[in-house]
C-alpha cells in the first residue's frame, strides 16, 4: 500500500518545555492510525506539525512523497484537518463556510457545489446547512466541520479528538463517517481519549507518553506485548501507570 504520511524525527519545544521528542509515524492508504495518550502527551502538537500548522524544530514530514517543509501548499492540499476544538465561522452558514474552504483549496466551482450537496446529504446536514453556525448545536457544528475536512477529498485525514464533547449519537455518527472515508481509501491519523473508538476504528495504534511513542502496533500486537486483555490496561501499562 502507498505510504501517504511519513513523519520522521519530529521534535518541538515551547520555551523550556519539550513537547515532542523525536516521533516517527507512517500512515498508508486506506489505513486508520490512532494516537493514544494522556493529556499533555503531545498529540495535538504532533498533529499540528503534520498538518503544517506548526513548524517542527527538527524532523521531516512528507505527504504522498511531497515534503511539507519545501512545498507546504502542495502538501497541505492533500490534507484534511479537523480538531474537536476548532470552530466554523459563527456568522456564516455551513454551506457558505464549505464554499469558502472549497475555493481556498482551489476546487472548480461546479465540482465544489456538487461536493457540498453530496456531503450535506451524507452527513445529514440539510436541516441546518443554511443556518448561521452560531445557532447550531455542538453535534451539528462538528458535522459541518467534518464536512469541511472531507470536502476536497484529501489523501490524508488528520483528526484531533473529533468526538470530544459530543453525545453518544453524534459521536457515533462522526466515527461512522470516518469509517466510510477509510473505506474510500483515505489514510486517517486520529487522536482520541476513548479506547472504544480506537479499538473500533484503528488499524494500528501508537501509545504516546511525554512526547514519545512508547509502543505501536495493531490491537492484538499491543495486547500481546503488554500481556493485558484490553486496550485500557495496555495503555496504562504502556505509559507506566501501575494498575
Amino acid at each position: 500500500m502507498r505510504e501517504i504520511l511519513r513523519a520522521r524525527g519530529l521534535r518541538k519545544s515551547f520555551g523550556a518545555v519539550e513537547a515532542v521528542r523525536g516521533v516517527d509515524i507512517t500512515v498508508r492508504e486506506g489505513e486508520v492510525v490512532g494516537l493514544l495518550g494522556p493529556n499533555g502527551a503531545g498529540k495535538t502538537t504532533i498533529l499540528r506539525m503534520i498538518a503544517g500548522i506548526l513548524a517542527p524544530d527538527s524532523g521531516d514530514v512528507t505527504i504522498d512523497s511531497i515534503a511539507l517543509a519545501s512545498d507546504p501548499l502542495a502538501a497541505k492540499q492533500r490534507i484534511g484537518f479537523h480538531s474537536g476544538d476548532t470552530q466554523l465561522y459563527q456568522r456564516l452558514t455551513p454551506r457558505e463556510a464549505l464554499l469558502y474552504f472549497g475555493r481556498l483549496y482551489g476546487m472548480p466551482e461546479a465540482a465544489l457545489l456538487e461536493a457540498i450537496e453530496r456531503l450535506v446529504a451524507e452527513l445529514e446536514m440539510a436541516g441546518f446547512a443554511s443556518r448561521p453556525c452560531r445557532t447550531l448545536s455542538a453535534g451539528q457544528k462538528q458535522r459541518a466541520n467534518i464536512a469541511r475536512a472531507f470536502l476536497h477529498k484529501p489523501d490524508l485525514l488528520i483528526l484531533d479528538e473529533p468526538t470530544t464533547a459530543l453525545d453518544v449519537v453524534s459521536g457515533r455518527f462522526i466515527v461512522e463517517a470516518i469509517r466510510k472515508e477509510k473505506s474510500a481509501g483515505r489514510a486517517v491519523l486520529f487522536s482520541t481519549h476513548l479506547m472504544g473508538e480506537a479499538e473500533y476504528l484503528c488499524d494500528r495504534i501508537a501509545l504516546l507518553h511525554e512526547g514519545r511513542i512508547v509502543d505501536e502496533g495493531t490491537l492484538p500486537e499491543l495486547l500481546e506485548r503488554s500481556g493485558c486483555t484490553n486496550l485500557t490496561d495496555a495503555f496504562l501499562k504502556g505509559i507506566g501507570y501501575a494498575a
Partner: protein
Amino acid sequence: MRWRILRTVYLKELREALRDRRTLFIMVGLPILLYPLALIGMSKLQESQEAAQSARVSKVAVWGTLPEGLEERVCGKPEKFECQRWQGAPAAIRAGLEQGKFPAPSRLPPDLDDIEPEKRPKPNLEDPVVKSAQQAILNRETDAVVILWTGFSSQVRGEGAAASTVLFDSVRPESVKARDRLSDQLRLYREDLRAKREQARGLPEGFARGVDIQAVNVAPAKRRSGMLIGVLLPYLLIAFSVMGAFYATIDMTAGEKERGTMQTLLCAPLEPLEIIGGKFMAAWSLTMISTLINIFSLAATFSRVKMIPGVEITGSSGSYVVALFLLLPITAMATALFLAIGAFAKDFKEGQSYLTPALMGLIMPLMLTMAPGMELNRYLAFVPVVNIALLIKQLFLAEWSADLLFIVLLSSFCYAALALVFATRVFERNNLLLGGKETLGSLLDFRRGVGGRPSPGLAIFLFAGSLVLLFYGSLLFENRGMATVLLVTEYGFLLLPAIVLAGVQRFDWRETFSLRMPSWRAIGAAVLIGISGWTVGAGLLIRLLPPPESLVKALEKILMIEDRTMPLWAAWLLVAVTPALCEELLFRGFIQSGFQRAGKWAAIGGAGFLFALAHASIYRLLPTLFLGVLFGYAVWQTRSVFTGAICHMLNNGLMVTVARSPETARELGISGTRYLPWGIIAAGVAVLLAGILLLPREESAPTT
C-alpha cells in the same frame, strides 16, 4: 501571492464583518446617528444658553453714587439690569467708600490686546474692597459689582477722569454677561460725556477722541468656515476613521482566535501573505466605507450647526473628496498596525486592551494640529498622522502646495508599507496565531538561510525604512553643508541599510546586487544611454509639469554643492559617482532583484517608480521615473548593476558639468533657456535609441 485566493479571503472577511452588528454600528450607526446628534445637540445647547443669557436680567451691585446720565443707563433699564445698590457691601466698606477712605486705584495702562496675558497687570485680590466684592459675587448675591470710587460725580462735573471698577467672575456666563453690559453702558456714558465736554468748550467733534480705530476681519465667510472645518475635520475624521478599523481588526484577529477558527485557516493551503492580505483589504475597505460615511455625515452636520455666528460652515465638495483620498494611507497604516497588534491578543477583550493604547497613540498627536499657528512644512510632512491632518487643514483653507502634498502622501504610504510588512511578519508566526507567545525580538529576527534574493515585501520595507531614515537623518546634518549631507545620505541612509539587510539575511550578494562585470558592448550602450537620457527627462517630460523656480534653485544648489570653487572632478565624485554607486546598488540592485519574481516589467517599473518617489518631488516624478526605468532596463538586459551605475553617473555628471561650466552650456546652446532646444532633444533621442539597441537583445536575467 494568488489573487484568486486573496479575493476569496477578502470577500469572506467582508461578508462576516458586515454581518457583525458591533462593526456595523461603529461603521454606520455612529457616523449617521451619534456624531450629528452630539454635534447638533451641543450647538443647539450653546445657542439656547446664549439666548437665555441675553434674555436674563443682570443683577449688578452698585457701590457708590451714580451720577446723572449714568443712573439712567444702569438703573433705568429694568429689561437689562436689576440695580442692587450697595448689595453685599459690608458696612465698613460702604462707610469707607462714602467717606473716601479707600482711594481709587492708580490709573491702569491701556488694555492692549497684544500684551501677553502674563504681562498684563493683575488685580489685587487682597484689597479689602475687591475682596468684599469678590465675596458678594462668589456668594451669588449679585452677578457683577461696579465700584464708583470716591469723588466719581465731582470728577465728572469738574472735567476730570472719574474712576470706576467692574468686578466679575469669568467662570460664570451670567457674570461675564453682566460685565459686558456694564462695560458697554460705561463706555457709552463716556462717549456722551466727551461729546458734551467738547461742545461746552467749543471744540470740534472728535477732538478728545483723537483717533478712531476700526478693526475689520477681511477673512471671507468661506475662509472662516474653512479654518473651522480645517481645524475640526481632520481631528474628527481621522479619529472616527481609525475607530472604524479598531473593531473590524480585533474581530479578524483576536476574535477569530477566540472563536477557534484561526486553526482551520492555517491548515488550508494558503500563504501568510494571502491571509493577511485578504484580511487587510477587508478591514481597510470597511475603514474606508466608515470614512466615507463619516465625511458625508460631518459635512452635513457642519452645514447645520452654527459655530460661527452668521457664517454657514461649508467646504467645497472637491475638498471633501481630496480629504477622503488623503485618508487612504493613514487608514491603511492604522489597519495594518491594528491587525498586527490584534494578533497578539488571545480574545476580543485582550484585543481591546492591546489596541486602545495604539488608538490613543494615533489620535493624541492630532491635538497638536488644532493648536493655532500649526502649519504643514517640510519637517512636519514626514510626521505620521500629523502630516495628513495638517494637509487636510490646508486643503480647506485652499493653501496646499503640490510638492508638500506629494511628500505627505509619499511618507504616509511609506509608513503604511512598514506597518503592512510588520503585520505580515506577525502572520507568519503560526504559533502566535494559535495563541502561543512570541517576543517582539523574534518578529524582528530577519535571519534566514544562506543564499537567495530579497522578497518584494522586503524590498518595499527597505525602501520605506531608508526613506524615513533619510528624511530624519538628513535633518541632523543639514547645517553641515551640502557635501556632508550628500555623502551621509547616500552612503549612510541609502547604501548602508541595503548592505546591512542583505548581510543579515545572508542573501547571495552577486544575485541580490547584480554584481557582474558588464561586457564591452554593454558598457558602450550604457555610455550612450547615460549621455542622452537626460535630454528626454529634462527636455521633454519636464514640459508636462514645469517645476517652480524654488525647485530649480534647489537643484542648482545641489549641483553647485554650495561651492563654486570646488574642482569639477570633486563635484563629479560627489554628485555623479556617489549617487550612481549608492542609488544603483539600492534600486537596481536590492529592490529590482526583490521584485524580480513579479516579472521583468513589474521589477523594472516597480524599482523605477520607487526611485522616482525617493526624489520626493512631484515635479521630478516623471523625469526620474523615466530615468529609473531606463537604467533598470539596462541592468536587466545586462544582469549588471554597473551598467546602470555608468548610465546614472554620466547623466548626473553631464548635468553638474553644465551647471558649473557656463561655457559648456553656451556651446550646447542651452544657456539662459528654460527648456532644452528641440534640436538637442532630437539628437539625444537618436543617441538614446542607439544605446538601447546596443544593449544585449536576449533577456539574460536569472530565473526566478
